[in-house]
């Protein structure tokens, strides 16, 4: 086993997830909000890898692999939406994006 207790990794993962939630709620820039989501995904990945290590099974790492793939797809589509919003509203501030139809 790793000399570092698995609990430390899980606490670190929770701290990063909490920071991601706080960023998601408090930030106003749509790109930074998106990056907070990526931070939360990374925190969850760390918990997956830590549990995979502790249980001696590789399923957690396979899950992390899939999470990374889905995050890549999500980033591509999400940033396309961000570009579209910036083009139509001339602003990246989420408080100005409050209408479904212009």
């Amino acid at each position, binding site marked *: 086993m790793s000399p570092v207790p698995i609990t*430390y990794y899980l606490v670190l993962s929770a*701290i990063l997830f909490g920071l991601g939630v706080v960023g998601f709620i408090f930030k106003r820039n749509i790109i930074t909000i998106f990056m907070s989501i990526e931070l939360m995904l990374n925190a969850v*990945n760390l918990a997956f*890898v830590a549990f995979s290590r502790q249980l001696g099974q590789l399923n957690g790492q396979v899950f992390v692999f899939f999470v*990374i793939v889905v995050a890549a797809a999500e980033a591509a589509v999400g940033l396309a939406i961000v*570009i579209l919003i910036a083009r139509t509203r001339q602003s990246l501030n989420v408080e100005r994006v409050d209408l479904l139809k212009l």
Partner: protein
Amino acid sequence: MIETALFFVFAGLAVLAAASLILQRHPIHSALSLIVVMVSLAALYLLLGAEFIAAVQIIVYAGAIMVLFVFVIMLLNAGAEERTSFSRLARYVGIPAGILLTVQLAYTVARAASEQAHRAPAVEPSSTRNLSLMLFREYVLPFELTSVLILVAILGAVVLARREK
């Protein structure tokens, strides 16, 4: 011993960079902070014995995804975030609520881990070989489905970002 020291170095770096992501007002600074978080997480994956995941983290996350972010920030010429006044409620309730959420999460997950600790098999699971065997045997259908997902995502991104005539 050195492993513990490395853990605290990279964990501290990750937390500091994540805090910097929130506190910076310019999106490009937030993006660079997020890259620091991802690289330190890759180092932690190495400490946990997940070499393949560490490499993928660097190549896909810190490489491809963050380049995409930085590219979009520069393309849109995004300036500093507008400062909007938070309501008092947000400041005095939101921040303690965030801390509470973090503590609650840490407590719950750490307790689950200590319950698992009794029946943990002391097997060294790692090695990329075993991971790839699992990926292409047990998880081959999800693996193929992700390729369809990526194809759909590419088409969606192209359709969305295309400039209408």
